[in-house]
């Protein structure tokens, strides 16, 4: 294959890697200011006892927020090999780079494990000796114990890290050798791995997010988080591709056809998320059983009313109409706008999933400001991680056997 390509156009210079500490620093300072904000606001009962609880929930929310991008990327890579897709070959390396951020992001989970080991029950109420609810006590007997929880978390991370780094290494090895066998191996393993992936994401969602309210359960919850992950991943891909192209990289490798396809996926997963989110709601709505509805009770009738119903418009109706037109999906600025919109909506969605369980103090402003700063901080850390991984690596898998197919593909005019 022709290897005469302009290296400068598809690689980030090492100087970019040097910027990652700046991003990391900005991220950490944002989070610290956020923590300060939590302790600024008095809780409902006047003191600041609720601040730490709010902090733990906020941290988990923002951690899950950036983790979902990488999980979406991992699934995307697996499914590209499973279906032997050609169209995505030129954007696949970017997705692979997002995918191999998992080992770095896993480090951010350590504080949660430390919190758990110290016996704190602010975030996970089941991590306590005195459990009032009989339902929770039963779950906390075997499944929701801090030891078993830690083991499970490590298993999820181990699986994701092994899968993502292995696939990434094979892809990088293909850069050197151009061996098509490396693609075949990945195609062969994509099927089994995708099954394990779906299990791991489902249980991770149950353990990390759903057990924040240990009395409540929803069997569709894993799919909910998966749908949100995929949607968030495509939004992130569109944003990153456009930022790189604005910096003069990968100009001719990511065409309007690829944006169109990513836009279609984004549109599709916006609808899929809505479908799953509504499926979860409507069953509880009809059944109207107290132990199932209390989760929605806090969200639909309490202080979080605006956010929960706002998601219908902000997370579904508006982007649905906005992304519906083919002209928008083929328009760079239009697509970028909706991708950024979705990134914000996804953050609100994660907030909707976790934060109502932290309660809301007498003052809303400072806790929410702190939470928002935490989200910005985590995104900044995500950017730092991305630069660490992306610098010095070709941003297109130049010797992928399906690359010509990706460059030739055009969406039919309907």
């Amino acid at each position: 294959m022709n290897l005469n390509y302009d290296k400068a156009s598809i690689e980030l210079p090492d100087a970019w890697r040097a910027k990652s500490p700046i991003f990391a620093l900005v991220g950490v300072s944002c989070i610290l200011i956020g923590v300060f904000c939590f302790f600024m606001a008095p809780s409902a009962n006047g003191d600041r006892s609720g601040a730490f609880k709010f902090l733990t929930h906020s941290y988990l929310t923002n951690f899950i927020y950036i983790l979902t991008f990488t999980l979406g990327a991992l699934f995307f890579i697996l499914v590209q090999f499973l279906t032997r897709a050609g169209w995505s070959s030129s954007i696949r390396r970017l997705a692979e780079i997002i995918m191999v951020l998992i080992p770095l992001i896993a480090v951010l989970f350590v504080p949660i494990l430390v919190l758990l080991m110290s016996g704190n029950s602010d975030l996970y109420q089941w991590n306590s000796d005195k459990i009032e609810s009989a339902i929770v006590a039963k779950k906390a007997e075997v499944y929701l114990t801090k030891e078993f929880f830690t083991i499970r978390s490590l298993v999820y991370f181990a699986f994701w890290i092994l899968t993502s780094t292995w696939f990434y290494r094979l892809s990088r090895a293909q850069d050197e050798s151009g061996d098509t066998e490396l693609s075949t191996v990945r195609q062969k393993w994509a099927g089994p791995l995708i099954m394990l992936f779906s299990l791991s994401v489902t249980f991770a969602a149950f353990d990390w997010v759903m057990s924040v309210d240990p009395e409540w359960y929803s069997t569709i919850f894993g799919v909910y988080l998966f749908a949100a992950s995929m949607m968030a991943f495509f939004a992130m891909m569109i944003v990153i591709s456009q930022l790189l192209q604005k910096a003069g990289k990968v100009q001719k490798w990511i065409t309007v056809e690829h944006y169109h396809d990513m836009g279609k996926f984004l549109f599709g997963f916006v609808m899929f998320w809505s479908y799953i989110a509504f499926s979860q709601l409507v069953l509880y709505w009809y059944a109207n059983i107290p132990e199932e509805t209390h989760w929605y009770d806090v969200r639909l009738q309490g202080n979080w009313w605006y956010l929960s119903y706002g998601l219908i418009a902000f997370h579904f109706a508006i982007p649905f109409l906005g992304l519906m037109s083919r002209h928008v999906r083929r328009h760079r600025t239009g697509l970028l706008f909706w991708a950024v919109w979705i990134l914000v909506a996804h953050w609100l969605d994660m907030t909707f999933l976790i934060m109502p369980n932290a309660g809301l103090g007498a003052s809303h402003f400072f806790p929410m400001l702190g939470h928002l700063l935490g989200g910005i901080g985590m995104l900044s850390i995500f950017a730092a991680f991305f630069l660490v991984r992306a610098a010095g690596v070709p941003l297109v898998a130049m010797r992928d056997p399906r690359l010509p197919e990706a460059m030739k593909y055009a969406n039919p005019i309907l």
Partner: protein
Amino acid sequence: MSEHKPRKSSEPKPPRAFGWMAEYADEHDLLVAARKVRDSGYTKTDAFTPFPVHGIDEALGIKPTILPFMVLCAGFTGLCTALLMQWWMNGVDYKYIISAKPFGLTPASIPVAFELTILFSAFTSFLGMIALNQLPKFSNPVFTNARFDRATDDRFFLYVNAADKYYNRESVKELLSGTHPDSLDEVLEDTTPSALPRGIVLTALLLVLAGLIPAMVILNMRASFSDLPRLHVFFDMDFQPKKKAQQPTTIFADARVMRPQVKGTVARGQLDEQDPFYLGYDPSKLSAMNGGQSVFYVATQPPQDGQPADAKPADAAAAPAEPAQKDATPAAPAAQAAGTPAPGAGLNLPWIDKLPIEATEENMKLGKTKFETFCSTCHGYAGYGDGLVHKRADALAQGYWLPPTSMHIDRVRKQPVGQIFHTITKGQGKMASYATVLTPKERWAVVLYVRALQLSRNASVEDVPVESRAQLEPSK
């Protein structure tokens, strides 16, 4: 066809020309030719291909269809229709309470809104496609050319319509010849006679008339009477070799279809009919008193000692239901409630007054669980007759609701345990039998729990063990 029906040159009027049609061997030639025709400014063109050709729309210069926009509008109309409909029906016109959910638009309105959006969109896209393509069209002038049959097989055709505003017969011919078609024909009007052959018309008419005959026969039969017996299409289903209850038979000497119990056998569950544990009363004592009539008294449960039945709930929650009892609805329970002494009043029926199960912690828990599952919906958790069903029925204020009995009125408090057990087993008034959902042991456990509830509302210091009485003193 053109070979079969050569046109006569002597015809007074030449056939109408509809345009030119060029034929190509593959889609690449067609695309090249189509672009050339498009660039020459012709818009009333069409291409006919055996399979969908990518890029043909762009090559022919076909503008994007407005169908998606129509579908979008229809979708919005459907959405608004559904939301308006549900808001009106469930929020304004016919407010119907469904498990205390709010009226009007709720998350439960979304599925209907979704369905109508899809329905309107689907109909619009389907019917809109038909309309925009001006279908159904039974004939097209291009069909007159016999070569055109291969458009569904292996040939590609480009057609320039004479209706185009720049159409000029000679220049179009020249333009298409320049694209090197395999053949170039003018599309001419079909001059074969269009009248149907007489035989076909006659046959069709006859068939239509013949088709009316069955309908006429049926109509005639529906309007007239017949003495003939019914036609048994499935004879063996109408007359089955089996016996129904109370019919005679020749198989047994006594000619009875229904067989009495064989001597010396015991039917399943038959022994329970003799056991007070399953009945709540002593059946041998019952049959000894007052002949067979006493069984009826057990079934109707007359009040003991001639005391009038008291159906009024003890708490104030049932106050709005008061008119219900004064209403002129002479239902049996209402009559009882009004204080008419039932027949058999004053009899001392042989109810069991000692619980056949131990008053253990385990039984008490069982009774509590069962009471809260099955009884509390009407009788309330504390047994005051103020359960959710009662509250709801009361709120509806329909006038004929008889409140559930409170456990804490004198009448119930004085009832022997056997009578309470019997009430659970057989039901009473509006209350149904719970024998199918509660085993006898569970029913006794519920009785135990009811007794505990009654004691909890009406206990004195003497009921507390002496050594525990000190705990009752208010701590200072």
